[in-house]
């Protein structure tokens, strides 16, 4: 029984870039992208693509990847295609810039309505820029769908999804009727690498680009204009603290000296 899945992905500043390269322009309330570090697909969204590919491997179906943003690098947003997804739709327009979870969820929901038929929508649990974790649930609420968040495993049978949801103690197993929206967490497992075959196939797929008018968005609902929450301030916390490095003639001696130092500091 083929399962058609829409996966929402977001292009973000690489969260693995060293913290020392991170800079904020406080006046503009924006992050200065680190030079020489290309953006990436949000890591949790890669887990979402992986979740979709596992279902496609098992049961067949079409995976449509959807991404909203500006200055979307084709080599970045096409990665899910190289992993094995079938189609790519981009909501790319200057007007989409500066949105919050409201305006972004709204745009993505309208695009999903235009895509039409689907059994499942997958999102990463949160994006590595704003760390908000609301857009997935927001899309589900706008579309009137049931949602299950932070999934580590998803299986589909008989018009239902069986989802293992991460909890503080381990997990809970939830059954949800389709269509549904599920957000995916890293506990699902490492996302597969693109294959050569996948990269070649992805080269041939042209992304479809939709503008706000294509998906019936009113200007007042889009991007920065459509925000419901105000960003008052963006800043880097001041870093105090100095690390006392403990040395030794050998690593072993340093280890011994560390223990002695901690005893002296009354920490042991």
């Amino acid at each position, binding site marked *: 029984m083929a399962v058609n899945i829409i996966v929402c992905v977001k292009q973000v500043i690489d969260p693995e870039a060293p913290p020392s390269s991170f800079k904020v322009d406080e006046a503009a309330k924006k992050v200065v992208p680190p030079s020489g570090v290309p953006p990436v697909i949000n890591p949790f969204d890669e887990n979402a693509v992986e979740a979709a590919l596992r279902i496609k491997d098992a049961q067949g179906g079409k995976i449509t990847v959807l991404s909203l943003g500006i200055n979307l690098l084709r080599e970045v947003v096409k990665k899910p295609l190289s992993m094995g997804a079938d189609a790519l739709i981009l909501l790319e327009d200057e007007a989409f810039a500066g949105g919050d979870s409201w305006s972004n969820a709204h745009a993505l929901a309208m695009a999903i309505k235009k895509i039409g038929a689907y059994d499942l929508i997958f999102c990463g649990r949160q994006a590595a820029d704003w760390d908000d974790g609301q857009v997935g649930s927001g899309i589900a609420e706008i579309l009137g769908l049931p949602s299950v968040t932070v999934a580590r495993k998803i299986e589909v049978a008989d018009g239902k999804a069986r989802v293992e949801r991460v909890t503080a*103690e381990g*997990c809970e197993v*939830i*059954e949800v009727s389709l269509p549904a929206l599920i957000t995916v967490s890293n506990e699902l497992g490492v996302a597969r690498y693109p294959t050569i075959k996948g990269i070649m196939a992805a080269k041939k797929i042209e992304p479809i680009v939709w503008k706000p008018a294509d998906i019936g968005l009113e200007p007042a609902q889009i991007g920065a204009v459509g925000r*419901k929450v105000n960003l008052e301030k963006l800043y880097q916390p001041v870093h105090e603290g100095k690390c006392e490095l403990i040395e030794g003639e050998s690593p072993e001696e340093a280890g011994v000296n560390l*223990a002695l130092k901690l005893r002296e500091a009354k*920490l042991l």
Partner: protein
Amino acid sequence: MAEYRGIMVHAESAEGKLAAIATELLGCGRRLADDLGEELSAVIVGCGISGLAREALAFGADKVYIVDDALLPDYQTDAYVPVLEKVVRQVRPSILLIGQTSIGRDLAPRLAFRLETTATMDCIELAIDPGSKRLLRTKPVYGGNARAVFTSELNPQIATVRTKAMTPLEPDKSRKGEVVTIEAGLDPAAVRTRVLEKVQQEVEGISLEAAEMVVSGGRGIGSAEGFKQLEELAGLLKGAIGASRPPCDNGWVPDVLQIGLTGKIVVPDLYIAVALSGSSQHMAGCSGCKNIVAINKDPEANIFREARFGVVGDWKKVLPAFTEKVRELRAG
């Protein structure tokens, strides 16, 4: 149109008591309520939870709303969202505080969209703007590399609060207040999910969140076998082991040991970070600890910017010697 007024806290419970996060939210809520000169209420949702009202009053609530229903023992989105919606529409709080927990992360966004208002997630500071009287919500962003402050004109102003970020009041059993029952009024057919099973990942020894000492390992540990050395040290210190994300993703340790932005938040007296780079996402889980000790062979590793003491060296050589010395010092 009636105005929105007062602070409300969603008070989670577990095993017949208020959860620690509930007491923390009440402590924070009390401060905000006193600042605004408004009332603090708690809403407790579940099955068989009516007895918890007294505890909520003791921890600072002026009023407690109880929604006790046979359909509510386990959290489910389609059950809790309409219940909280009903309570909010009846009580009309200006501010609603929810824990950044397994429940809160699911409940708050869906509820915010249902109420056509906004939520700010994972707040570490909350304050009232002296001019506008609106809630200033401060949260870490970009994995913790930056902080953002948000406000919104919409009501209720919803914020989820990071665990251990706020301080509870000393409970005062003599505090009195009103307890109000609200009927859940749920249609079972409207709940589109079923909880089939709950699974607890077995972890031996002391729980991470209770431990006063934590020994944590990162990608550099390299294997499940490597973590046994950390377990040995943790055992000596009567502490717990934890990990950053890569060891969990690689299956070297159970996922429940993940410390970080989307994992556990811990505030032990001593945090020993072994072969762990100290990414911002990981530090979000342990930066409350004043005594971080780092062992890492990379002198540029971010952990050395966060630690109080450190050794630059190969953990495979440093740690065994460290552990032996600790054993000797403890025995003497």
